């Protein structure tokens, strides 16, 4: 999977390293901005209020 991705990246090795790093950063950014905040909703840490269970 990652080997195929590496082969698909264009340019010489130095270029590929840079591209891979950028891809990784983009993935981490998407996780932190959207995926993790969404997943957090189903964990109990945010429940600090008393409510009617609504």
């Amino acid at each position: 999977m990652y080997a195929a991705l590496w082969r698909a990246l264009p340019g010489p090795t130095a270029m590929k390293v840079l591209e891979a790093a950028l891809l990784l950063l983009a993935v981490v950014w998407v996780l932190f901005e959207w995926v993790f905040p969404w997943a957090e909703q189903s964990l109990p840490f945010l429940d600090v209020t008393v409510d009617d269970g609504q």
Partner: protein
Amino acid sequence: MAPLSPVRRTLSVVGEVLITLGVVLALFVAYQLVWTNVRADRETEVARAEVEESWIRPPRSASAQAPAAEAPTVQPGVGFALMYIPRLRESVWATPVVHGVTSADLTRGLGHYPTTALPGEPGNFAVAGHRATNGEPLRDVQRLQPGDLVVVETADQWFTYRLDRDRIVLPSDVWVLDPVPGDPTATPTQALITLTTCHPRWESAQRWVWWGTLVEVTGKDGPPPAAVAT
């Protein structure tokens, strides 16, 4: 390089997927334990600055009558007070109190249950705060003791409450917010404060509730209460 057999190729993909999931889970832990606090601390700073800025008002014209005890004006999602708890000085000190208890509100400091009284009013000034992640101002709630002071600073006044009892309740126990907790029909004569947070810290099956009573009100034209004087 000799081509891999289909079985080994499949296994290698499965292995990479599993390693990836492991890394994503580790990142999620880092997000929860570190990043949510970094983000919340930043938002709390902004909220504190907004509160302090909102207190700076043009001087009243001479003709306008200055009310003796002016209730703070509140709008949803906007901070209107700062809270100080000497016992929890590392986590609750000039912490903004935002009007509302949504997730967004609670990331900016402490949240005021919008249907409850304002500081100093007869009834119950009820406030919620995170205990784990997202700023976690009440992370050390277990250190509170009866007799501890909670000071609330508004535009014009300092309100000092003394905590007197706590209780662990169910999330559905909304009576804890009543003007007279436990007596829904009573008319409040005292000004109370209620703090709620999750319990146990990392599970939240219950809520930890602290109640206190207003013991002192001082104007901001005088010195701050001893509890917050550094």
